[in-house]
């Protein structure tokens, strides 16, 4: 064990001497309070240590002890439904034991050592097992069956395995390695957070992640195993979008990282998620959620670690063959934590004071996402999707974090304050956002939703694009200067914006919209447009078409409940026909 002495303290950075024997990224305990830190730079005898807790009270000459192990997370049953801080300490347990405020130097195991789990073996003694092979199962929550796998790097012959009730540290079986050593097997394993967990092969993503959000699923879809970012100025609804994704996405596991954000937002998640039911399983969505919270008043260095802690936990579930989504709010705070440490290390700054390695660190994070063939003999396929919010300063997306992120991720949902001011939510700009998965996913949509899918989306896009151009003209010369056809385009685009793209996260019927309902609603609006075009040709006036009472019904169609919308939509369809026919008939009579 290496022991050194503190030489200098600067905020979360501590420099210690006498650390020659320590290794890069070793976890160290600093001072008499045994604060947790990590070595991030070695220079001869001196080590720079980022300390994950408030450093007030540390002084020169205080002891620094290396543990000799890198920063790791504990992986095993008990992760779900829990909330952890940036270095995976369980916040609820800490609240019960140490009171409502966070004090320093707490040592609390991530996974409860007293909770017991019912273990069912799936392998038999004598089996030859390799890394990632299945040992057995633990039913962790009603919806999630936690697969216990042989950790990466281990292989050999299984000597014994016993069903029964165990804590995470109890021995459930033993393995004989090729060199003859026997290793006890437990439900829990450890993994260093900065190293991506291995898999056998990466595959291109081909299936959409259905989020129940119309503007996302229809216009800018994300694939399972894909990456996306949500940049937006404050007040544009980033957090609501992220919460919506965490609530409604059709993935098996969600890891939600609150990175440098508000404490009340995490509390909101903690209070709200247990009450919400997953539309697919009918169970509380908390049963598939892991929360990582480093709120903005918690120490900065742990913010840097929180992202890695979260994605490592996500990879662990991916290795079981689940589809997992990591949602990080917000990666800008993580980048700022990097910047703060870099500044204190007196490194040469890159753009806007961010370190030059910002881009490569971001790329490393997002590259841990993907659709993979997991380790193990059965060739399970797991997906890990990563979605990061970005908080550009002043809403200006030309800043380094947004630009570095955009070079890596495939989906860009750009939030805009002007839309938010008009209470158009989600405030995703339909002209500047993009998804590079569109063409890859179009086969899936064509096969599962409708053959016209691509055509309808293109029409929707071109209507919104023409509206943008026509608005320019209207601003110059007024709406009267437009031809009736163009005015109909404006009316339809408005309807698309208000009746389709807008979605109220706080209204029960509207918060989640199934893909079938999205498709039906879109074709309802477009069919009105086509029929109105025909009526226009037959002499009806634009104003009369715009004033039709059925349009109000279209406006309310989005909040119809999932079980009855089919019937009501066809009724509305018939009303459209009837009212337009009446209009043209009246026109003919007038002539």
């Amino acid at each position: 064990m290496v022991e050194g002495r503190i030489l200098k303290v600067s905020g979360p950075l501590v420099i210690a001497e006498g650390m020659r024997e320590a290794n890069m990224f070793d976890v160290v305990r600093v001072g008499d309070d045994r604060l947790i830190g990590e070595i991030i730079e070695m220079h001869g005898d001196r080590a720079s240590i980022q300390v994950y807790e408030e450093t007030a009270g540390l002084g020169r000459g205080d002891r620094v002890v290396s543990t000799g192990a890198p920063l790791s997370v504990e992986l095993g049953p008990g992760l779900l439904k829990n909330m952890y801080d940036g270095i995976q300490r369980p916040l609820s347990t800490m609240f019960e034991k140490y009171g409502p405020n966070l004090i320093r130097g707490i040592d609390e195991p991530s996974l409860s050592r007293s909770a017991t789990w019912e273990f069912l073996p799936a392998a038999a003694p004598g089996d030859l097992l390799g890394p990632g092979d299945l040992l057995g199962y633990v039913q962790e929550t009603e919806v999630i069956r936690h697969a216990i796998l042989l950790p990466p790097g281990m292989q050999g012959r299984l000597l014994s395995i016993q069903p029964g009730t165990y804590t995470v540290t109890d021995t459930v079986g033993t393995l004989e390695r090729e060199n003859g050593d026997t290793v006890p097997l437990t439900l829990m394993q450890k993994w260093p957070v900065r190293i991506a967990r291995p898999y056998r092969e990466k595959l291109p993503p081909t299936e959409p992640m259905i989020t129940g959000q119309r503007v996302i699923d229809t216009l800018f879809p994300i694939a399972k195993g894909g990456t996306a970012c949500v940049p937006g100025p404050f007040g544009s609804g980033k957090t609501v979008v992220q919460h919506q994704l965490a609530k409604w996405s059709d993935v098996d596991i969600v890891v939600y990282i609150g990175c440098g954000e508000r404490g009340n937002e995490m509390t909101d998640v903690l209070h709200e998620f247990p009450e919400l039911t997953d539309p697919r399983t009918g169970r509380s969505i908390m049963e598939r959620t892991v929360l990582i919270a480093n709120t903005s008043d918690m120490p900065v260095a742990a913010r840097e670690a929180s992202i890695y802690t979260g994605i490592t936990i996500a990879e662990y579930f991916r290795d079981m063959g689940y589809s997992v989504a990591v949602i990080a709010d917000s990666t800008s705070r993580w980048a700022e934590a990097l910047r703060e440490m870099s500044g204190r290390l007196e490194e040469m700054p890159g753009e806007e004071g961010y370190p030059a390695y910002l881009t490569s660190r971001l790329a490393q994070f997002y590259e841990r996402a993907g659709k993979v063939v997991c380790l193990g003999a059965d060739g399970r396929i797991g997906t890990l999707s990563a979605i990061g919010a970005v908080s550009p300063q002043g809403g200006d997306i030309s800043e380094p974090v947004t630009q570095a992120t955009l070079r890596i991720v495939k989906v860009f949902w750009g939030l805009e304050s002007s839309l938010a001011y008009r209470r158009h939510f989600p405030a995703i700009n339909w002209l500047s956002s993009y998804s590079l998965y569109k063409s890859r996913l179009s086969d899936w949509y064509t096969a599962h939703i409708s053959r016209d899918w691509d055509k309808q989306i293109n029409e929707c896009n071109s209507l919104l694009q023409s509206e943008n151009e026509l608005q320019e003209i209207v601003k110059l010369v007024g709406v009267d200067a437009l031809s009736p056809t163009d005015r109909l385009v404006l009316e339809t685009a408005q309807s698309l914006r208000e009746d389709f793209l807008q979605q109220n996260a706080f209204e029960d019927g509207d918060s989640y919209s199934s893909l079938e309902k999205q498709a039906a609603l879109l074709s309802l609006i477009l069919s009105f447009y086509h029929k109105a075009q025909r009526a226009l040709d037959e002499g009806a006036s634009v104003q009369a078409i715009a004033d039709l009472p059925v349009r109000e019904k279209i406006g309310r169609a989005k909040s119809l409940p999932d079980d009855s919308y089919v019937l009501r939509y066809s009724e509305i369809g018939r009303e459209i026909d009837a009212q337009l026919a009446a209009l043209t008939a009246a026109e003919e009579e007038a002539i």
Partner: protein
Amino acid sequence: MLGRVFSGMGEPIDGGARIIPEATPDINGTPINPAARDYPDEFIQTGISTIDGLNTLVRGQKLPIFSGSGLPHADLAAQIARQARVRESDAGFAVVFAAIGITFEEADFFISDFKKTGAIDRTVLFINLASDPAIERISTPRMALTAAEYLAFTRNMHVLVIMTDITNYAEALREVSAARKEVPGRRGYPGYLYTDLATMYERAGRKVTGSGSITMIPILTMPEDDKTHPIPDLTGYITEGQIILSRDLYRKGCLPPIDVLPSLSRLKDKGIGPGRTREDHAGTMNQLFSSYARGKEAKELMVVLGEAALTPLDRLYARFADEFERRYVHQGFYENRSIEQTLDLGWELLSILPKSEMKRIKPDILEKYWPKK
């Protein structure tokens, strides 16, 4: 402590006796465990329509006022301190007031206003004037927050913390940072400005372990009214919304000149609705927002093209926007409207528009509340 005036370092400056301490906590505080927080959802009636109706304040929220030089933010803050009530109870809040680097006159305005209304008896003041040392400015808000935490979490009181002016605080922080030769971030402010502000703002809230709460209203003046300046920008990323004052409205004589469109309260959705305010609150709120936004667009168009170029509907919207500013926004600093008055006024203004435009309001609510003529 209540009723007393202290310096920025916590020394009494009102000529009274020294405090005999019951506790001497560290003014830097410790972060609240998110698992121990209670979600703020109790409606606070401030008596100001634009806040109650559209940007609702709840107990335990941190809602800053973004202002500019020469705008009446002090009057607004004093009005909130005077009128803030939780419904079904007449008990006011204990007020902790931190003056950070403001002039004597501004500080005097608050003190005499509190004295005039008798609020001084439930107020603790920490005063750091512009002439006091800058370094004290860094401790002033922390002194005030520590006092607030004591009142809220040890004494179970409901505390309203008003801090003015955060811009002076950030300048003091920059001064100290420059003296320490630290690498500057944007506009010379230190790179840890976000973290530093967050450790103050995040001390607002409620805990599940007690009944007290800290509601925080920091006031900051935006240099050149620029919302993207680092101080308002970083504040906006931490706080739960913002109230923005507009120079245009002030020139038009709207008091308080709250610009409702960019203003926002993130916690409003949980604090309104049946049992808290009234069932029609959420719908009318969204409808007023979107109608006012459309009305303002129509008015801009009118400036370019003249009134004749507008469709009849847009003309109605333009009229709605005018009436909205004249009657809903403008109410003066001494009118105290109940939430029912605010909601009814909202309906009255919405009835300028045709009923078919009320797309944000549920049909049954629309039938029940739509004014019969």
